[in-house]
């Protein structure tokens, strides 16, 4: 599934029942310090424990060292190891975390190639409150099944 991150709902519309998730963890993988900070604070607002990585290799190394995350936000274009390569590696390692691609390139072909690497979803950055709510709902559904 791919989505457009440009809608405008306010965080104030999200009720307290909805989305505080104290048991969920997330890894934000982005070479932009601005985007790392933005998504970091955004996810923490929803109660997630968040770590950041500045490229795909750092992310893959974290998993190799035994780290695990419920959610991975993966930027596409990064130096050293890009999001497509990192996603392929993580899936090849058997990582079952929800991996969500975030990209600022809009071409459908680009998103498709990224999805085929093993993403669960792909959205334009930055992620909006509605998209984060949606992802957390999906994560909660997935965790309740297991």
């Amino acid at each position, binding site marked *: 599934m791919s989505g457009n991150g440009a809608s405008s709902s306010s965080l104030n519309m999200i009720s307290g029942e909805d989305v505080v998730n104290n048991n969920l963890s997330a890894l934000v993988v982005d070479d932009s310090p601005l985007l790392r*900070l933005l998504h970091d604070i955004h996810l923490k607002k929803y109660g997630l424990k968040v770590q950041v990585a500045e490229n795909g290799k750092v992310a893959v190394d974290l998993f190799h060292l035994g780290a695990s995350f419920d959610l991975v936000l993966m930027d596409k274009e990064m130096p050293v190891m890009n999001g497509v390569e990192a996603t392929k590696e993580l899936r090849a390692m058997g990582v079952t975390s929800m991996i969500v691609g975030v990209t600022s390139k809009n071409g459908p072909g680009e998103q498709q190639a990224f999805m085929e690497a093993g993403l669960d979803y792909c959205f334009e950055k*930055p992620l909006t409150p509605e998209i984060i709510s949606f992802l957390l709902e999906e994560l909660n559904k997935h965790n309740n099944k297991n």
Partner: protein
Amino acid sequence: MDRYGMQNQIACIRRSLFDQGYLDEQFIQLEELQDDANPNFVQEIVTLFYTDSTRLIQNIELTLTSRPTNFSKLDDYMHQFKGSSSSIGAKKVTSECAVFRQYCAAGNAEACIRSFQHIKQEHAILRKKLEFYFQMMGQAAVAQTT
């Protein structure tokens, strides 16, 4: 100026940034992420943006002066610039970045150079306006404690 006068002035400054098209709803989402745990979040993000974008401007300028023009590199830099700009809600800067990328895709170096001047102009104008806005907010915060 009394406290209420100052607050009114700040509200007017803020409103004009949106009315004149300098900022869009993404800036509102940044403001909504600011709280007691992150009281200077918006200013931090904007500062990060200007640090990052200044570096990108230098890289773009260097690439524009090289011959033959490396449009692929230019597009990569501008993709990053556009991503960062849209993340802080810098509406005019983001629009100009999109125009630049169109000229890049068309391989039109002269148009890229002209477009880049517009980008730098909007980048500088927004910086001045935001610096003034944050300065006023700082003064209002001090006034509230006295």
